[in-house]
């Protein structure tokens, strides 16, 4: 059985629906990337799972427990790193982490060790005693993430975990999320960064205007954009007769010359690349360089969220 089941979950604020009937399963120990433009409903969906919002319709089942019927049971499984850091700004990082660990039932010895560990990893050992309101934006975000790393819950939710973070810190957070999953945690990762989603997620779900419009492995989703691969061959000179030859190949959707550059739009570009080069060469074309462009997760995102595809 799936670890998290969203069953036709809808949530409205007054008469505005932020989430409009999402049905989707998240498997045990997977990293599930939740994508969608600003305002798509990612955070709202997460909040219904965390029992902070009661769904207007439908239900969320977490590890077999209904979030509305057994909220305490569900909450004891979940740890959330919120999009906007949520903790007492008057307290220090260490105090925040101690309190969070305590209230989520992490035993003292383990807790202190994990806190030291995560503070060191984030390079915050020196700032652990400062009141957090005076820390930088990225540092505040790290402390928010640190709560979940100290807790190590069965289900970890990260809402934009690397927003505001510098490059080494992003890599660190990614490693730590991977580690968390390897330890048995199911991860929900809401993000607007396609490289992050692509790199981290076993599967992604793309939300648009409150609906889950597509779910699948990043590679499979990219594959759904058939005919969107592009092979660019630079020839010694333009060779217009080649266009007709190339178009005979079934997978090719379109081909034309831009100067001495032959552009071929097709599906299965990677497999067909050697064949296309052979074909052009056999017809007398002198290939100087070749470039294969495959759809990125970004293209997938733009396609399914209805934003224009470039």
């Amino acid at each position, binding site marked *: 059985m799936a670890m998290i089941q969203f069953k036709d979950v809808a949530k409205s604020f007054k008469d505005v629906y932020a989430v409009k009937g999402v049905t989707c399963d998240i498997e045990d120990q997977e990293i599930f990337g939740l994508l969608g433009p600003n305002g798509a409903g990612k955070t709202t969906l997460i909040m219904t799972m965390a*029992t902070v919002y*009661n769904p207007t319709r439908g239900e969320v089942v977490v590890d077999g427990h209904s979030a509305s019927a057994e909220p305490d049971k569900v909450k004891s499984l979940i740890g959330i790193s919120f999009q906007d850091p949520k903790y*007492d700004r*008057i307290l220090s990082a260490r*105090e925040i982490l101690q309190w969070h660990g305590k209230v989520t039932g*992490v035993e003292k010895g383990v807790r202190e060790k994990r806190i030291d560990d995560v503070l060191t990893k984030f390079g915050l050992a020196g700032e652990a005693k400062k009141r957090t309101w005076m820390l930088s934006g990225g540092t505040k975000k790290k402390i928010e993430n640190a709560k979940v790393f100290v807790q*190590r819950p069965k289900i970890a939710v990260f809402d934009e975990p690397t927003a505001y973070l510098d490059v080494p810190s992003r890599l660190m957070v990614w490693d730590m999320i991977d580690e968390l999953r390897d330890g048995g945690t199911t991860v929900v990762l809401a993000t607007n960064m396609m490289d992050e989603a692509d790199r981290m997620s076993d599967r992604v779900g793309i939300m648009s205007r409150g609906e889950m419009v597509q779910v699948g492995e990043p590679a499979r989703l990219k594959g759904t954009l058939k005919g969107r691969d592009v092979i660019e061959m630079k020839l010694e000179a333009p060779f217009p007769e080649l266009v007709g030859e190339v178009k005979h190949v079934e997978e090719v959707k379109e081909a034309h010359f831009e100067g001495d550059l032959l552009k071929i739009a097709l599906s299965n570009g990677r497999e067909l690349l050697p064949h296309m080069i052979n074909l052009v060469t056999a017809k007398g074309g002198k290939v100087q360089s070749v470039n294969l462009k495959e759809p990125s997760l970004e293209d997938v995102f733009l396609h399914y969220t209805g934003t224009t595809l470039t």
Partner: protein
Amino acid sequence: MSSKPSSLFIIWVLIERDLRTLVKSPWILINRTVFFLIQLFVFAFLITKLASSLGFNYFAFYSVGAVVSTITSIAFIIGEDLFEEEEMGLLDYLLSLPFGHTLFVIGRALGGAVRGLIYVTPMMILVAYLDGYFSVVGVAGSLLVIFVLATGISGLSITLAMLIRNANRFDIMIALAELATVRVSAAIYPLVYMPKVLQPLATYSPVTSASDIVRAIFLPGYASEPYETVVLVLFVLIFFGLGSAFLFRKLEGGKFE
């Protein structure tokens, strides 16, 4: 992975958080202490001299009431904290943690009360000493009574925080509630000198009850009616109930609805 903590542990952890934030804002403590001392040594001294012709030791009467009033107004702060937590979105975090809403309200109300108790314990000892009736049992008993009162006031304050969404309106309501509980009571002046219309209200005020019970413990010649204990306990139960009920309602509907 972690184990599920017990209810008592959760209540303690919630109280601990309120204590930690208290320790980090010492100037509030200083502010209230100075106010208390000025009231006691300037205001009460003056009035006591004025009232001495009545053959009534106002200073003793007032000093007990001043401690009760102080803990009352400190207990109201917890609602302000909660209101601010909601405004800043911190409530989302707190409510995502593994405990029920009732436990949350109980923990916070007790947190507010324990904070108040920490503030006023030195005041209570000072007053007992000044009035010349110091005893460990007396002080402990009095602290217990005002702790119960503070728990109820915290519950009332949390109820208001859950009920009112507009920040200005909330500030006004808290100020009014504080005024009503402290002033419409026999905390700092005897009931008989109060306007006739307010007397019935003041008679059944939990602050009156707490003040009278503490005076009965401390001061010779004072007694407390049994119904006053009932009023105090009912007050606490009602506002625990209302506080958690409104928190529930707020969540059932979803926030900001």
